[in-house]
């Protein structure tokens, strides 16, 4: 139990996917202009990460390993994740327009997100068991959401600042992201991850 808790904490804070592993930077910079969208994106990522790690775990242990084709891991995972997300998007769009509005529109953005693939690959690398994989994916998603929302909050605030011309827009976003990442370094060593 404690092990699982540590995995979760590690994934959320210490080895935060965005701020420590630098995965998923693209949506991190792109969809963080408003806290609401950032939150929606975060939710979608949590969902996809969890589902993807479940499916890829089965793919790995039920197909790839028995057939001895682990070297196809990356391509197989991408294939599975991409189609899975597409599928989920379509289902949500049809069955629950409300959910689609808040979550579904982010899904296509995640299909090829490196953070999702990263979770799947790390699960295997760290040879987590099934439960650990799920918890790790959940933590990674939570960490992603946390970073997203914090960053969106900061960006909403810096929107009001008289920023020097040369630093406006993405430049300042990158500086801010750097400082946020710096702050997250404080968690280093908190849990060996």
């Amino acid at each position, binding site marked *: 139990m404690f092990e699982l808790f540590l995995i979760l904490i590690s994934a959320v804070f210490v080895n935060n996917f965005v701020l420590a592993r630098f995965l998923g930077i693209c949506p991190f910079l792109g969809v963080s202009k408003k*806290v609401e969208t950032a939150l929606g994106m975060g939710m979608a990522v949590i969902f996809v990460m969890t589902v993807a790690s479940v499916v890829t775990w089965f793919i790995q242990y039920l197909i790839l390993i028995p057939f001895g084709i682990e070297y196809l891991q990356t391509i197989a995972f991408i294939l599975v994740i991409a189609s899975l997300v597409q599928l989920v998007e379509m289902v949500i769009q049809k069955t629950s327009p409300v959910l689609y509005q808040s979550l579904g529109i982010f899904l296509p953005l995640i299909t090829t997100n490196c953070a999702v693939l990263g979770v799947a690959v790390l699960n295997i690398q760290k040879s987590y068991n099934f439960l650990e994989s799920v918890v790790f994916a959940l933590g990674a998603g939570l960490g992603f959401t946390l970073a997203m*929302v914090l960053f969106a909050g900061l960006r909403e605030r810096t929107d009001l600042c008289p920023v020097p011309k040369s630093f406006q827009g993405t430049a300042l976003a990158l500086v801010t992201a750097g400082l946020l990442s*710096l702050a997250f370094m404080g968690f280093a060593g*908190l849990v060996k991850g």
Partner: protein
Amino acid sequence: MVIYALLPACAVSIYFFGVPALSVLLICTLGCVAAEAICCKVMGRKMTLADGSAALTGILLALNLPPSAPWWMSLFGAFIAILIGKQVYGGLGYNPFNPALVARVVLLISFPVQMTTWTAPAPIGSGLDAVTTATPLGEMKTAVMLTGKLPELATSGFSNYLTGNMGGCLGEVSALALLIGGLYLLYKKIITWHTPVSFAGTVIIIGGIFWLIDPTKYPSPLFHLLTGGLILGVFFMATDMVSSPVTDKGMLIFGFGCGLITVLIRLFGGYPEGVSFAILLMNAATPLIDRYTRPKIFGQIEQEAKS
């Protein structure tokens, strides 16, 4: 005003560490002022030196550096603080992070060796040369890592910590002098009680819980309170208005977050000291705290009840 409140602490650090401390203080302060002046000039904005904010950042930064910090490091830190910490966001009032802390963390990560080389206090007139020593927190961390037990210093010697007779950053050394400055700020109503009380309170409570769980492994809350940059952080860094929440409720949450993260990093993290990181992290959370702690608008209560 805040600068006056920091003077006792500066004086104490100069007393203990002598000329090196003085030079760190001067370089940081002048460096920040110069950086600010250059920025204003380059961007063609109005000179903002008169508000004293750059000088304050410099002093705060100096108090966060070890007395043995080489001059180039102090200067580098000063420029980081003003350029990256403040001016890229448009200057005073807009920086989301505390500039002095940004600089400290950058230095800590870039130059870990210089940043963690501590000299033992050698009060002026004692005739001692500088001796390298460890900070109480650093020593504790090493000891716990090696032996799983607290070293002796974590259970005694509190009066030394109070007056500053220990190794550490300029501003870590004298809790008493900082306390005086902090109380002065409170008295002058420059800061409110919310952040300091909730920050220090959280450290005492969380630290205390761990201490009660295992007094041989975890230090007492008093040790937490008096060592490291806690007092400095509580009164001078966390209360920086620009980078902390604006509402009373927000400040309480802010203080709680700072305290919690500080204790966690101190006890379990890779760094012996967590105050800087804790405050920076909570700085990052400030916009969100502000967002979710908006005060209830007059006349809004009934309306919600009705609808």
